[in-house]
């Protein structure tokens, strides 16, 4: 109980959850459009590197963020070309993008910076202090001082919810994920909407990557995403492909991880404690969430001329 009231637990929860939520939201857009996307890991990693490189070069973290997001989108574009134009297997292409990102970022890290790593003078994105929030009990301190990208998440979430369920674009995107033939029969260009979903996932994964490298840190190390893209995939599924669900799933995972970190150092062996978030996630999905339903046409390449 005492543990749960510790504001820092919630600070940790948030800092672990934020990149997961961004990436999972991105995945959600892509899959809502019917494109299975497991390339979040690679898009995050690419952006993590590119944002550091540009932030270091221009001494401006915002430019870093912008370029990072662009690089995420560029990876998404590459993914789309194979998945949507060449109708390649989406899972395989996703894996390819992840491998490619792992290789390219490491390769370029060596090429640009040698063995000294990214410059320590790299600026990072600002942390904002919103004093008026600190009055809230327990979670106030966690909310009142956060990276700007954490605050950005709130409008992004609202926008995601709004765009997906209130705008024509959202309706159309969802129709492509459920039954692209129906969208096509309404005269819509299937590929264009699917592309927009995948690109959004690139942008959002890009933000997630930048959060890791120039948001909370100011440097890049090889494979620094360390599987967060895959956990984001799990969060997206757990969240049942909805923005609100994704937020809860991300927060749950963040909370469990934070809890396991807080619990370390007690009598329980640390490795056992580290198992906690994973096992509890399994319990949650098996016991509480149960069956989740993906968009009906998720992962099926859309063939023109087939109805």
């Amino acid at each position, binding site marked *: 109980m005492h543990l749960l009231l510790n504001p820092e637990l919630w600070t940790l929860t948030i800092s672990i959850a934020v990149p997961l939520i961004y990436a999972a939201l991105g995945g959600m857009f892509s899959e809502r459009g019917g494109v299975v996307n497991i390339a979040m890991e690679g898009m995050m990693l690419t952006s993590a590197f590119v944002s550091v490189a540009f932030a270091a070069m221009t001494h401006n973290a915002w430019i870093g963020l912008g370029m990072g997001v662009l690089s995420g989108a560029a990876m998404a574009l590459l993914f789309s070309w194979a998945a949507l134009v060449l109708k390649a297997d989406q899972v395989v292409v996703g894996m390819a993008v992840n491998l490619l990102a792992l290789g390219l970022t490491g390769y370029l890290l060596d090429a640009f910076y040698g063995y000294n790593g990214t410059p320590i003078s790299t600026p990072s994105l600002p942390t904002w202090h919103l004093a008026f929030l600190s009055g809230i009990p327990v979670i106030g301190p966690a909310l009142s001082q956060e990276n700007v990208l954490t605050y950005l998440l709130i409008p992004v979430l609202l926008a995601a919810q709004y765009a997906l369920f*209130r705008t*024509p674009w959202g*309706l*159309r995107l969802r129709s492509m994920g459920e039954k692209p033939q129906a*969208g096509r*029969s309404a005269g819509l260009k299937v590929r264009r909407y699917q592309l927009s979903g995948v690109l959004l996932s690139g942008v959002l994964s890009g933000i997630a990557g930048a959060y890791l490298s120039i948001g909370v840190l100011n440097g890049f190390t090889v494979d620094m995403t360390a599987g967060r893209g895959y956990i984001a995939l799990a969060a997206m599924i757990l969240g049942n492909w909805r923005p609100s669900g994704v937020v809860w799933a991300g927060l749950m995972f963040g909370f469990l991880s934070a809890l396991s970190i807080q619990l370390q150092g007690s009598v329980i062996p640390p490795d056992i404690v580290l198992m906690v978030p994973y096992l509890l996630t399994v319990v949650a999905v098996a016991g509480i969430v149960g069956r989740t339903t993906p968009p009906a046409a998720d992962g099926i390449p859309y063939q023109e001329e087939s109805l």
Partner: protein
Amino acid sequence: MNVAQLEVSNITKRFGSLVANDRISLSVSGGEVLAILGENGAGKSTLMKVVSGFLRPDAGEIRVNGTLLPSGNPEAAIRAGIGMIHQHFMLIPRMTVMENLILGFEPRTRWGQIDYGRARSTVRQLADRFGMPIDPDKPVERLTVGEQQRVEILKAFYRGAEILILDEPTALLTPQESEHLFESIREFSRQGLAVIFISHKLDEVLAISQRVLVIRSGRVVDTVPTSSTDAPTLARLMVGRDVNLGMGRRGNGTASIGEPILTLDQLEIARTREHQGLGPLSLELRAGEIMGIAGVDGNGQQELAETVAGLLPHTRGSLRFAGESLDNLGVRDRLARGLAYVPADRQGEGLVLDFKIWENFILRDYYRPPYRRGAGMDVRLARQQAEAAVKAFDIRPQNIELPARALSGGNQQKLLLAREMSRKPRVMVVAQPTRGLDVGAIEYVHQQLMALADGGTAILLISLELDELMKLSDRIAVLFRGKIQGVRTREQFNREEIGLLMTGQTRPEVVNQ
């Protein structure tokens, strides 16, 4: 009145080496209903997909009111006023009626979001104008097939269609729903719309259209005014030979009918989210008998079939097969006792489209003799048997190594029947065996079913086609809301009365008591 005019000239469409449409021309104008007839695979759907912009023709042109349409562009077709109701509905089950209707043509508020208020009122107006009431906020997956079709038609109107194309619209409808649809179509005509109507059902074509265009193997065979033709003529034009349209079940009535073999006793299934409730319901099926199950779609037919097949456990009552209780037996035990099942959804359930023909052929028997061999299967035997069946049932193409996907719907149905009938079943449950098939294929399927019954198999025939039931059945039981509304024997068959029973118009009665 501004009368729309569609002019299609010299359309050619090839799929690889196959010429699906070969220089087809037609025209239709406002206030007219043009019917298109043709065998399965004749190229009707292809032509309409070309007209509505889904497929790009290899040659030919399409004009609406004299203006050339860009080819392969559905959006342009919609804007020109062409509304297509596809053979397979283009609806998204998990979305609401309204979302389906407005997709691609969403009314927007000043802020760019969807204006649901305006959309709702537009939908209401349209529904009123064409007399097609519908709840705009219901998810499509909860609608009956007839209602879904209504949504499809409203969708076309919502997009401003003036030329309406209906591809086999009645294939899934009950007689009442079909009648309703015809009234609507007549109303559209009156309002000046041009209608193209595709069907395999000659009586429908005769009832609704002014002209009939007959296609065979991608070519126009003839265009005839409806008033100057009749069913046998049309059938001959379509198939290229005489077709026996009328012949029914053997005249000798119930002479060859034997012992009771399948008994349903106060059978009940609780209603769930996915299932209509069923029963309590009692039925007795005898060897050599064809028992027809009539009813409006969604009144428990599917549940009845699945319960007998062993896919759906019943909650109460009992099910006996030749005296033995089936209550605790699974699918395989029932198969082993000689029960066969031809599901209505042949592509989604009956067949595995990616499996080869021979693999599909052994789908229900691979695990037991004679196919069982050690941990594996006797693949050679399986191929032999499949080869024989493909020949016997004239499944084309006769290459058992092809995936079932490469077969046309009619041939897929034949494969399914071939599989179940080769098992020499004692009881066979058949659901919608001729849905979407052309007259030639229907004739064939009917012959097979009658021959099977003559051989002593009891058949539970579930169909939405009253004519089919009346032609084949020895008795017809009418399902209404999961209960049997009445049972009629061959001598008592009466179209109107059965139609009334289907809508629940008489007191429920319990059979066999």
